[in-house]
């Protein structure tokens, strides 16, 4: 009964979506304010019905309603309650319900927090979101309805949630990732609304910036969590595998990063308008493409859901309509988008667009690497596979010029920058970063060129970022009006957002460089009492004990770690057996530290009673994820900037409608 209500709520949400896509858009066309005003209640309605449907499905999980096919496939009566709640997104249908739930959340957020934006624009934006919603709700109702029943013959118990997903990382990873993916739909809708309206000044860029930053921050956290989850749950000791599904989340992130920078240029300098629109379309398109790749079974991956050509065909149809339609609109309108700002060859504008080029090139590399095996086969050249070495090599080539520009960009001026003025500063920055890198590198036993290169790049970003802050506050200090602290406080939150984003990137880069170069691993056969020494750490294998969890049994290997005779850590590496799915899972024992992780995975028991163990010492690996969180925090800081507080700024911005150029200067 509850499930039928859920199904009904989904249909109602679809109806709301259909109305939302028609009335406000038509109202904006004929300038009918009451029709435009319908956008808000319709968006709220769509959200409320979707929440209700979601609650109904959750109810099905909590009450073990195995007459629902989806519940029977992804849950089990012995599953702990918190995993029952999160198992709602443990399979294709439910995770898609979460997808549309988050989509309707973004839609309702736009409806509620856009008071400062002209009603016509909001109506168009919401209408476009409504059109996208129609596709998603139809897809769910027609091809993957989570409320399908298995009546009259339903199983007594469920098949259980995939043990890989029974984990804290998996509880928060998909919602974060979807918040990011789906969030780009807002940037997309703003761009399309701007194209439709023909109102092609750069105001839409200002409106869409906070939304894009929010989506980007979520996506950053989501990708980082996914990588962290793969690190400790898969037990392979790696943190990024260039798996097609990882790539599918990484591509929107790369383009999203380009987009937040390009939006800044378009807003402040009114240039690169058509490029920014194209990026906004691409970011969402890549999110959709990711959905297609994951859910159609076109590519083989550890993540992919069961393949089903009819689903794939439906999503492909959606791609053609949504992406194809918007690109056609783009081709029709973009020629009218003319930048009216002027800039010289060496200026912040050009450096930013340079960075955009490298980010787009990186996206293209990932896209080609992911799809080439498919294309290669379809044109009859046989199967190939493209692995990590290809991606690693390409990214090493791309990141050097990228980081170079990333350092110079913030230091340079808009419009025009004389190279001579920066020359000395950059030379100092370069010398500083090289010496810092060499010093840090010297603390490791054998030094590696790649690690040195990575460290030089990281310190280059750090040094130039500090220089940029100094350059920014210098006039105020020399004028004698403010102290250093006061002038630092006068910097805008969005400026600190940039600083935080760039420093976060440097932190991630340090982590990647050091862990890639100095990671040590060993596979050993050990009997209880044996010890092995790795990088100055002595791992003593104490014993193996057994215990049973709610829905699994486990062997636990206890390992103590000593450094110079002092015990520094004690880790428990588990090997779990889940009887329902007959699956063996490793839960690695990890002692996390600021400068290193000690990682122990328990292998199989050998004939003579010994155990095989896999032991890693991973320097600075946590910095990879720490950096990602700092980047995301930068996004949050930027959003908190006053000029995005739309309800308050409404009167001011009307007063300043004539927009004197000094305002733009102040804001930058």
């Amino acid at each position, binding site marked *: 009964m509850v499930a039928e209500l859920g199904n009904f709520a989904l249909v109602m949400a679809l109806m709301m979506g259909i109305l939302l896509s028609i009335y406000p858009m038509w109202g904006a066309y004929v300038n009918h304010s009451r029709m435009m005003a319908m956008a808000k209640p319709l968006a709220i309605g769509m959200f409320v019905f979707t929440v209700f449907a979601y609650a109904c499905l959750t109810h099905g999980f909590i009450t073990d309603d195995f007459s629902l096919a989806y519940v029977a496939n992804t849950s089990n009566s012995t599953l702990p309650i918190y995993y029952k709640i999160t198992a709602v997104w443990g399979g294709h249908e439910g995770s898609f319900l979460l997808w549309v739930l988050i989509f309707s959340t973004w839609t309702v957020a736009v409806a509620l927090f856009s008071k400062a934006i002209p009603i016509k624009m909001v109506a168009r934006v919401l209408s476009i979101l409504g059109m996208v919603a129609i596709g998603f709700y139809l897809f769910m109702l027609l091809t993957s309805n989570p409320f399908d029943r298995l009546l009259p013959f339903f199983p007594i118990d469920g098949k259980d949630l995939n043990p890989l997903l029974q984990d804290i990382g998996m509880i928060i990873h998909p919602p974060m990732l979807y918040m990011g993916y789906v969030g780009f739909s807002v940037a997309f809708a703003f761009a399309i609304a701007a194209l439709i309206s023909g109102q092609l000044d750069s105001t839409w860029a200002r409106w869409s910036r906070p939304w894009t930053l929010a989506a980007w921050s979520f996506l950053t956290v989501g990708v980082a969590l996914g990588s962290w989850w793969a690190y400790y749950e898969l*037990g*392979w000791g790696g943190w990024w595998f260039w798996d097609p599904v990882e790539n599918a989340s990484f591509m929107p992130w790369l383009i999203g990063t380009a987009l937040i920078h390009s939006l800044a240029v378009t807003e402040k300098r009114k240039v690169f308008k*058509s490029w920014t629109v*194209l990026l906004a*379309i*691409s970011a969402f*398109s890549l999110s959709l493409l990711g959905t*297609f790749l994951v859910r*159609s*079974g*076109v*590519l*083989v991956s550890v993540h992919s859901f069961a393949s089903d*050509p009819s689903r*794939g*065909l439906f999503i*492909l149809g959606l*791609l*053609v309509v949504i*992406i*194809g339609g918007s*690109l*056609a609109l*783009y*081709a*029709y309108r*973009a*020629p009218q988008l003319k930048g009216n700002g002027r800039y010289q060859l060496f200026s912040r504008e050009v450096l930013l667009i340079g960075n955009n080029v490298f980010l787009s090139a990186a996206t293209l590399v990932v896209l080609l690497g992911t*799809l080439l095996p*498919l*294309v290669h*086969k*379809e044109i009859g050249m*046989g*199967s190939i596979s493209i692995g990590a070495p290809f991606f690693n090599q390409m990214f090493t080539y791309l990141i050097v010029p990228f980081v170079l520009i990333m350092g110079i960009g913030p230091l340079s001026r808009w419009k025009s920058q004389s190279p001579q003025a920066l020359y000395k500063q950059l030379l100092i920055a370069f010398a500083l970063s090289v010496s810092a890198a060499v010093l840090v590198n010297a603390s490791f036993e054998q030094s590696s060129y790649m690690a040195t290169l990575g460290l030089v790049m990281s310190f280059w970003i750090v040094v130039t970022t500090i220089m940029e802050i100094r350059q920014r506050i210098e006039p105020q200090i020399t004028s004698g009006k403010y102290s250093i602290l006061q002038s630092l406080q006068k910097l805008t939150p969005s400026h600190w957002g940039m600083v935080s984003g760039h420093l976060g990137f440097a932190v991630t880069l340090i982590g990647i460089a050091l862990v890639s170069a100095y990671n040590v691993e060993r596979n050993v056969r050990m009997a209880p009492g044996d010890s092995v020494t790795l990088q100055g750490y002595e791992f003593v294998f104490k014993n193996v004990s057994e215990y049973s969890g709610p829905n699994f049994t486990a062997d636990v290997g206890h390992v103590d770690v000593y450094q110079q005779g002092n015990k520094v850590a004690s880790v428990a590496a588990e*090997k779990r*057996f889940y009887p329902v799915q*007959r699956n*063996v899972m*490793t839960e690695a024992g990890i002692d996390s530290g600021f400068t290193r992780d000690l990682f122990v*995975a*328990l*292998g*199989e*028991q*050998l*004939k003579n009673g010994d155990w*095989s163990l*896999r032991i890693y010492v991973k320097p600075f690996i946590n910095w990879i994820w720490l950096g990602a969180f700092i980047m995301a925090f930068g996004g949050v800081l930027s959003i908190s900037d006053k000029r995005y507080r739309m309800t308050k700024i409404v009167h001011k911005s009307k007063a300043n409608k004539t927009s004197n150029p000094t305002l733009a200067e102040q804001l930058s």
Partner: protein
Amino acid sequence: MKKIALYLIPLGLFLGLIIFLYQGLFSNPREHQSSLLEQPMPEFVLPDLMNIEQTYNEDVFLGKVTLLNVWGVWCITCAIELPYLKQLQGEGKHIVGLYFDQDMDPDFGIKTVARVQQEVTDKLSQLGNPYAFNIFDVKRDLSMDLGVTGAPETYLIDQQGKIRLHHIGDINPRVWKNKFAPVYDLLVAQ
């Protein structure tokens, strides 16, 4: 007009991509077999299933026409084809088993080798042993290199160690007559 053409590029690229994605939907991504035909056996060094101390490499196939049969005790279809393989062996065919265990995770298996050997001995004494010897694909590396999608699968390898045929599924008299016999007879005649 020239300008519009420029802005049409993204649309064009996208539509091109769609064509491939559409085709991709209707082909099996796990299909690898065609690429291996006429290729030499991939390099490997793997132990004998029954005598772990002894190892084989790809040279073991030289000089003889061999049927390499991928199987496991957990595989039901394999059990069905075993008696027919036994019959083929009786007709003088050289059959080598490539054994992999399903419950064995590539890194962290739960079965001991002794138990696997016991299971295999039980199964073969019950249904007949067609194998000259069994190669134990411990980590399933060779199966991966061969593009094995499941079991049973059978490869026909010529005297030069080249793969000439690949069959997915069981071998029965019909499959043998239609698919294997023509190639096999030709190879033996050489």
